């Protein structure tokens, strides 16, 4: 883990309230990163915001040395990040957390299940999986048509089904409805999204080994402050999402 400043090379609105950052970083740093890890972003150089914001690694472009982040403007911090102009420096702790266990994986086909701002980390994962020759099918849920992003990007890597809560685009309903109706499965599933979605996914996919990526309000982001814990399923205590996660085996923690 390092604290670095990267140059913001591009900032684009790619869907409703959804910003894509492309940040230039050193190649040495980028090669260390695993899908599922996140960065802890400083909002600005003043004392107005004392907490960083955790944002998932969405993609890495090794040719241009660019890190892609995608975030939704939901509160004061992300609103400030939205205002940043290109060519400013972005202060990151990177890489945070553990990432998805790609090496141990014995799979031919995996199912990626993402909801809203849970979609970004699945993209770099999908890329890495397909590089390893593993087939990916993505089921991505959004609120509404205006919120959809990265459909084409996922489609370039495998099957991709979009669903919206209000039916304004793709299928209608939750990701679990799509899985049900389309009878989707895989050797593993990887899921990231709101807790309610993860719960539904976990129940639905009981038969399949899966990994989920969790969110919690964070302080340090590096395992020092005990802000971001979640109870373990085996009753032996809790683990830190920032340090022991954010990726966990679906049956490892109590949602």
């Amino acid at each position, binding site marked *: 883990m390092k604290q670095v400043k990267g140059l913001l090379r591009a900032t684009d609105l790619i869907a409703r309230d959804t910003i894509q950052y492309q940040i230039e970083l050193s190649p040495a740093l980028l090669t260390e990163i695993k899908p599922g890890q996140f960065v802890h972003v400083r909002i600005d150089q003043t*004392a107005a915001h*004392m907490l960083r914001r955790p944002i998932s690694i969405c993609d890495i472009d090794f040719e241009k040395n660019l890190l892609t982040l995608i975030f939704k403007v939901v509160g004061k911090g992300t609103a400030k990040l939205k205002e940043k102009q290109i060519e400013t420096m972005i202060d990151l702790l990177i890489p945070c957390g553990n990432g998805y266990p790609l090496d141990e994986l014995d799979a031919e086909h995996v199912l990626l299940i993402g909801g809203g701002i849970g979609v970004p980390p699945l993209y770099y994962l999908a890329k890495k999986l397909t590089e390893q020759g593993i087939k990916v099918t993505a089921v991505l849920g959004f609120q509404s048509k205006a919120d959809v992003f990265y459909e084409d990007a996922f489609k370039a890597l495998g099957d991709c089904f979009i669903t919206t809560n209000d039916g304004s685009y793709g299928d209608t309903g939750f990701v679990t409805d799509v899985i049900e109706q389309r009878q989707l499965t895989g050797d593993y599933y990887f899921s990231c999204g709101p807790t309610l979605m993860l719960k539904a996914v976990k129940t639905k996919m009981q038969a399949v080994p899966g990994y989920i990526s969790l969110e919690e*309000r964070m302080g340090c982001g590096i*395992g*020092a402050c005990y*802000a971001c814990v979640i109870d373990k399923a085996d009753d032996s*205590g*809790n683990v830190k999402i920032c340090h022991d996660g954010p990726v966990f085996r679906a049956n490892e923690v109590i949602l």
Partner: protein
Amino acid sequence: MSRLSVRLPGLDLKNPIIPASGCFGFGKEYDQFYPIEKLGAIMIKAATEKKRLGNKTPRVAETYSGMLNAIGLQNPGVDTIIKNELPFLKDKQLPVIANVAGSTIEEYEAVAKALNGSGIQAIELNISCPNVKEGGVQFGTDPDVAYAVTKRVKAAADVPVYVKLSPNVTDITVIAQAVERAGADGITMINTLTGMQIDLNSRRPLLANGVGGLSGPAIKPVAIRMVYQVYQAVKIPIIGMGGITTIEDVIEFLLAGASAVAVGTANFQNPMICSELIDQLPFALEKYGFTSAEEVIGKGHLNE
């Protein structure tokens, strides 16, 4: 003695910069960013007799120039801390100030006893944690109770005892004088101010615990005021904290009467902060006309 060094009971510090308890774990995580042996000392996360899992989440929230936390004293228990965490700090030869917490006077005493012979340099007696249902802050708001727990821990401990005061009191000098009478070797202050944030969507307090402790730059004026008052009320030294983010803040605390300072919340914003403050201190001393850190202590008072 070097320009930056300060001397307090049990603590010969090469510089007056210390990470605050609960904001720096047991040091390992921050050692990724810089060699933590550079620090004056480390105040480790609160230890209780047995392992504690703390409060439900969410445990933190951001506020204007500050944050709320209600971790609830999660820690692996004093024995595990001694076994798993102290060896790393011993290797680093970093002075350790162990934050001692409990729900009863007996628990405080037991934790202090367990730490005997563990190689720590001082105890920070935490009678001011607002985030646990019993114990914590109630020990820090009543001078008689503060006296009693300090006396017991002082008798049990084999190292100097610093008592950490709560700012959530009408007159902090009364508590400071009570713990001084009970034999405290020093005071650390301030712990967090009790606060709350309500979530507009759920219409409920945002932290699962309801209330939490407010820290960060927002509380600095309150901390400076209290250090200033306590400096005039007691003779034992003070380690000051509350909202430090810049080297000017460090100087301000020393002027108010602190002999050393602790940095909490700022570590989350900038993990290098303590290291940077140590590097900046010599230049700041020069800029404001001082030749040593010791010289600054208490110089903000009219009679000095």
